[in-house]
C-alpha cells in the first residue's frame, strides 16, 4: 500500500469490504426479506466459504509458520481462484442445507434460535478442529490472486473492481431469480404457508432452497473476503457480523435488493469511519481558538478512558439502528411498506 495512501487507500478498502457485505446482505435478504426465514446465524455461511477458499488454496503446512492444518490443496493461483470461489459458494450452500434440514421447518422464533445457536456451535468447530482450520491461529497465507503481477496498489484497485463486478453479477442474478415464478413462490410461502400448501407446493422444500441460495451467496462472499485479506481467522467470524448484516438489511429495506446493497455500503462506511473520531477530535482541538481549547476536553472528560470505548459505541449505534428502523421506518430506506406488512404477519 505504498502509493495508494491516505483517503484513497481508505476509500478503496471500505468500498471492497462494503461490496463483500453487500453480497452477505443480498444473501440474508433472500432468507428474510423474500422468504421470511429468520436466520440469525448468517456468519456461519460466510465463515464456511472463507475457510473453504483458504483450505483449497493454502500452501503446504511445511512452508507456513505455526501451521497445524493437515488438509490443503495449494491450487495454483490464477486458475485456482475461480475454483476456490466456487468451492466457497458450494460449502456455504452445503452448510445451509445441513442447518436448514434440521431447522427450516421450525416456526420463526425457533428458527431464529436454532440458527443463532448452530452458528455458535459451528464457530466452536472452527476454533477446535485445528487439523482443518489451524485453530484460533488462523489461516494466514491465503494467496491474493494476481498481487505479484500487479503490485500492491494496482491489485487493491483490481480487486475492488472484481468485488464490484461480483456484487453486480449476484445482484442481477438474485433480481432475475426473484422475478421468476420461483421468486413469487418464495413470497407466497412468506405470506401464507397454508395458502402455498393449498396450491400443492411443498413449503419445506421451498424454504430449504431459499436457505441454500442465501447460504451460497454468503459462502461466495466468504471466498471473496478470504482472498482479499489473505488471512482467515476465527475471531473475524463472530455473531456481530450476522447482526451487522441484519442492520444493513433493515436499514436498506428488507425485501429490496437495492436496499440491501445500499444498506451494506452505508453500515460499513459508518463502522469504518468511526476509527477517525480521534483524528477528527484532535483536528478540531487544533483549530479551535485559544479561549475555547478547554471546551472539548471538558466535554470528553467524563467519558471512560479505555481503548474499547469508541469500538463499543459503534455497536451501540448499530443497536439503536435496529430499534429506530423497526419502530419508525420498518420499510427502511428503499423498501416497500406493503412487503414489510406481509413480513410482519405470522402464525
Amino acid at each position: 500500500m505504498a502509493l495508494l495512501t491516505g483517503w484513497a487507500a481508505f476509500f478503496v478498502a471500505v468500498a471492497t469490504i462494503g461490496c463483500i457485505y453487500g453480497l452477505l446482505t443480498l444473501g440474508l435478504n433472500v432468507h428474510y426479506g423474500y422468504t421470511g426465514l429468520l436466520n440469525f446465524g448468517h456468519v456461519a455461511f460466510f465463515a464456511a466459504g472463507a475457510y473453504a477458499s483458504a483450505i483449497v488454496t493454502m500452501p503446504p503446512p511445511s512452508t507456513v509458520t505455526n501451521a497445524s492444518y493437515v488438509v490443503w490443496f495449494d491450487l495454483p493461483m490464477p486458475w485456482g481462484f475461480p475454483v476456490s470461489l466456487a468451492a466457497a459458494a458450494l460449502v456455504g450452500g452445503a452448510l445451509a442445507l445441513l442447518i436448514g434440514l434440521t431447522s427450516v421447518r421450525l416456526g420463526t422464533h425457533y428458527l431464529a434460535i436454532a440458527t443463532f445457536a448452530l452458528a455458535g456451535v459451528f464457530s466452536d468447530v472452527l476454533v477446535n478442529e485445528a487439523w482443518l482450520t489451524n485453530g484460533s491461529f488462523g489461516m494466514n497465507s491465503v494467496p491474493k490472486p494476481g498481487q505479484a503481477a500487479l503490485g500492491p496498489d494496482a491489485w487493491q484497485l483490481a480487486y475492488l473492481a472484481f468485488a464490484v463486478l461480483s456484487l453486480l453479477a449476484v445482484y442481477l442474478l438474485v433480481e432475475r431469480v426473484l422475478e421468476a415464478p420461483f421468486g413469487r413462490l418464495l413470497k407466497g410461502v412468506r405470506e401464507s404457508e397454508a395458502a402455498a400448501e393449498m396450491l400443492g407446493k411443498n413449503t419445506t422444500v421451498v424454504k430449504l432452497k431459499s436457505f441454500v441460495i442465501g447460504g451460497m451467496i454468503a459462502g461466495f462472499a466468504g471466498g471473496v473476503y478470504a482472498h482479499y485479506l489473505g488471512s482467515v481467522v476465527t475471531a473475524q467470524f463472530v455473531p456481530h457480523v450476522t447482526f451487522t448484516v441484519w442492520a444493513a438489511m433493515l436499514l436498506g429495506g428488507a425485501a429490496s435488493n437495492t436496499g440491501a446493497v445500499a444498506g451494506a455500503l452505508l453500515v460499513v462506511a459508518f463502522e469504518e469511519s468511526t476509527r477517525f473520531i480521534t483524528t477528527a477530535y484532535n483536528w478540531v482541538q487544533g483549530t479551535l481558538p485559544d479561549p475555547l481549547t478547554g471546551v472539548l476536553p471538558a466535554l470528553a472528560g467524563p467519558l471512560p478512558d479505555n481503548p474499547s470505548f469508541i469500538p463499543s459505541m459503534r455497536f451501540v449505534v448499530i443497536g439503536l439502528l435496529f430499534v429506530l428502523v423497526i419502530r419508525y421506518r420498518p420499510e427502511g430506506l428503499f423498501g416497500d411498506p406493503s412487503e414489510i406488512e406481509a413480513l410482519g404477519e405470522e402464525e
Partner: protein
Amino acid sequence: MVLDNLLQTVVFGLIEGSVIAVGAVGLTLSYGVTRFINFAYGEFLTYGAYLTVFLAGGLFGLSVPLPAAAVLAIVVVGLLGVGVSRVFFEPISNRGALPLLITSIGVSFVLRNLLQGWVGVSARQLPIPLMRRTDYFGLVRLTDLELGVIVVSVVTMLAIHLLLQRTMLGKRMRATSGNRALAEVAGIDTTNVVRQTWFISAGAGAMAGILYAVLFSPFRPGVGFEYLIVVFAATLLGGIGRPYGAMLGAVFIGLAMNFGSTYLSANYTRAYAFIILVGVLLFKPEGIRGGEF
C-alpha cells in the same frame, strides 16, 4: 473410581443446571406474557454480575457485603428490565412478535456495548475466596459455594412456584399468558402485569448471572450473550412459556453439558446443549410449541 467420577459429573451437571434453571425460568416467564423471545435477556445476566462486582468492590462509594450487593443488583436489574420494556418494547407491543424480536437484538447490542464501553473488555471477578471441596459421604466433593448455588436456585424455584400458584399476581400472570384479551376483559390491568413480569424476569436473569459469576469467574461483558444459547436451549427443551418445563430442561442441559465435557471433549460444551435441542426439535417439534403456565 468410575462410579465416583460418574457421581461427581452428575453433581456438576446439577450445579450448572441450577444456574441455567434460574435464567431459563426468567426468560420463559417474560415470554409467557410478551410472546416474543428476548435476545436482550443475556444482558440481564451480565448486568447482574457486573453490578454485584461494582457494589461489592465499592465502585459507587461504599462497599456493600457480597450477599447484600447481590440482592441490590437483582432489584436494580429488575427495574432496568421494566425500564427497557417501557422504552423499547411497549411502544411496539401491538405490532406482532417479529418487530419485538428484532428490536430485542438491537437492545442487546446497546446494553452490552454501553457496559463494555464503560468498563472495557478486561475480565472481572467477584471477591470470593478460593474454597476447598468438602467430601460428602465419601462420594462427591463440593465447595460450600457450589452447595449454596444449588440451595439458592432451589429456593428461587420454590418461590416462583408459590408466586404462580398462590398469589394474585401469579394468577394474573397466568391469565395474561393464557389469553391477554380475555384477562383484560376480566378486569386485569395487563399492562401492569407485564411490567411486573418484566421485573421478575430481569431479576431472575440477574440472579442467574450472579450465580454464574460465583461458579465460573472471571467474566467479561460478553458473558450473558454467550450463555444465552444455553439458556435458550433449556427454555426450548422445556417448552417455551412453561416455567416447570424450563426447570426440567435446565437440569437436563446442565447434565448433558457436563457429561459431554467429561466423557467426550471439553471443547464442545455448548454444542452438547444444542445437539440435544436440535434432536428434540427434529423428532418432537410438536412438543415444544409455546404454551401456558
